[in-house]
């Protein structure tokens, strides 16, 4: 299959929400009027300077942006190649990039007069960020979370409850993120009048992939400015982990039309791509339609969705945002995969060399950095998105290392 290179990698989606053949609006009729209303409201908000100013103000004073761009000196020296920077989105309020998007969406929900917030969550980071903004603006919040995930992410479940959210265990299907998303969609279909669904990643029916990307692009815009100030030039490469892909697209998007910037996205290879127990939809899946968009999915020969596996609950999803599917096909971004074991090694190395506990999600990105950085010249500047902090993962890591807490 030959795919024609576009003039710009930043022009998508088209009017119907398509990135090439990906994206779209594959939802039940009941939801269709709602996503059309959301699209209109978002287009109007984008053109409204007051909306942007309000968002910027909350990002600065509540979220804590801009996040630092940090030169990881000891890690760079240890690997002996590229000069490695971390974009420190783990320093945001609530400990991950998720709040960038939640802040944008809740301001949109308020603008649309919605009175009730719902969300899905896997690791709980998006659930915590949603519960946080819902508390800040006094709106009731219901978070759907797979029963399996509730069991392995207890601290985040308690955090959401402290923030006043109701956490609803999802016991259908594989009881993880995809099932939580099914259940959130079922809630939305049943509460069409007053409810705003804050989707946590750059996936779902149009306009969500574009909307979430736009709210997360603050990561890439800041990185550009900070790098210009710091080094007087753009970085040579970018690395980010990818589940649904919101932190990655947020970092990448402002750089997509810079042909000299090499871009890597890192999927979760779980126990290994050959094991069948992984979450690498691009590396090992094929195109299909789920949760409102066409994208790469882990599926069997009959088109049934397979369960994903990753040590990182935040990457444990059998799909990926549609813009990534397109960027994969046109070859602008290189998608690679890192196993649980490699991510765990990166997690420990980062803790000891830099005094930073990365979340298991960016530990995947870091593991890829560890693979490629040693082979690169010393003047090669690499930026990795440290999209979340690892406090939430200490129990998982302890268990994986055979340590009893």
């Amino acid at each position: 299959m030959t795919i024609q290179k576009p003039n710009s990698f930043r022009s998508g989606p088209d009017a119907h929400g398509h990135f090439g053949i990906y994206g779209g609006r594959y939802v039940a009729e009941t939801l269709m009027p709602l996503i059309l209303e959301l699209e209109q409201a978002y287009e109007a908000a984008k053109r409204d300077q007051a909306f942007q100013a309000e968002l910027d103000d909350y990002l600065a004073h509540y979220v804590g942006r801009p996040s630092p761009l940090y030169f990881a000196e000891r890690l760079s020296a240890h690997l002996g190649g590229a000069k490695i920077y971390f974009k420190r989105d783990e320093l945001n309020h609530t400990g991950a990039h998720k709040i960038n998007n939640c802040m944008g969406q809740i301001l949109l929900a308020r603008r649309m007069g919605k009175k009730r917030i719902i969300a899905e969550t896997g690791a709980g980071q998006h659930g915590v960020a949603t519960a946080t903004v819902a508390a800040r603006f006094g709106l009731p919040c219901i978070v759907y979370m797979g029963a399996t995930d509730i069991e392995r992410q207890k601290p985040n479940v308690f955090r959401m409850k402290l923030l006043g959210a109701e956490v609803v265990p999802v016991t259908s299907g594989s009881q993880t993120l995809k099932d939580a998303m099914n259940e959130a969609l079922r809630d939305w279909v049943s509460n069409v009048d007053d409810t705003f669904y804050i989707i946590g990643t750059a996936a779902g029916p149009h306009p969500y992939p574009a909307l979430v990307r736009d709210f997360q692009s603050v990561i890439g815009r800041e990185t550009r400015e900070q790098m210009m100030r710091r080094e007087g030039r753009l970085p040579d490469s970018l690395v980010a982990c990818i589940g649904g892909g919101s932190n990655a697209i947020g970092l990448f998007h402002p750089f997509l039309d810079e042909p000299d910037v090499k871009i890597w996205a890192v999927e979760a290879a779980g126990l290994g791509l050959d094991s069948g127990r992984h979450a690498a939809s691009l590396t090992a899946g094929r195109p299909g339609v789920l949760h409102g968009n066409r994208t790469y999915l882990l599926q069997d020969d009959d088109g049934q969705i397979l369960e994903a596996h990753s040590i990182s609950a935040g990457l444990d999803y059998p799909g990926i945002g549609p813009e990534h599917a397109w960027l994969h096909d046109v070859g602008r971004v290189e998608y690679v995969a890192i196993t649980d074991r490699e991510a765990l090694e990166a997690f420990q190395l980062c803790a000891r060399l830099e005094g930073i506990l990365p979340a298991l999600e960016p530990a995947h990105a870091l593991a890829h950095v560890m693979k490629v950085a040693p082979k690169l010249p010393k003047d090669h500047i690499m930026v990795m998105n440290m999209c979340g902090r690892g406090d939430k993962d200490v129990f998982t890591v302890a268990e994986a290392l055979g340590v009893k807490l």
Partner: protein
Amino acid sequence: MSRIEQRFARLKAEGRAGLVCFVTAGDPDAETSLAILRGLPGAGADVIEIGMPFTDPMADGPAIQASSLRALKGGMTLRRTLDLVRRFREGDRETPIVLMGYYNPIYSYGNERFLTDARAAGVDGLIIVDLPPEEDEELCLPAIRAGLHFIRLATPTTDEKRLPAVLANTSGFIYYVSIAGITGAAAPDARQVAAQVRRIKRVSALPVAVGFGIRTGEQAREIAAVADAAVVGSALVGRIAGAASSDAAVREVLDLVRELAAGVRSARRSAAE
């Protein structure tokens, strides 16, 4: 005239509403499922909807979710679903069959190949929950070209502005979803349904079937009084879930179909015409 059109024409001539019965293909296994399908027309089903099992049925409630998972566990696939239709058709040339489900298994099977095979197996129409009019190029238009009806869902959120788009490429009948919600949820209010059916009939000559939340003969009677057909699904597959054996599942489903059919046939028609 297609089988669906013939069936609704006959119902009209008989002066009564129809009963549309939904069961999931292969629930709980292929042979039991076939026995249920073969028993449905005799028990009073006028149109059969066969659910194509999918792992992630986003618009369905717990009963149909569980039904779908039982079928998948029993080894059902889209190819075997078409086999079931073929075997049903060997003994029944008249009862319309509509396949209902989600798009991904079809997309995975290959759209053109699916349409050819479905038509050859004896399928008359498709209801694909996650293909709104905005994605008509995808499967709806090719289905019409292949000689299959593409039956659309209209819902309480389908307003006046949107209704023409929903009706545009719909044929066979229109499926009005009586509540904004998932399958098997609360029972619909017959008076509200009557008003909605009238709203659709003002702009379309197609028969209107009404579903979501109908569980008993009495509820079926109320809906049949104001619509061209009543659709029942969750309550039927719920009987399969509770059955102690394969024979019991067939018997209990068909018992409920007889109750529903009696309800539908006893309805006094008023607002539907």
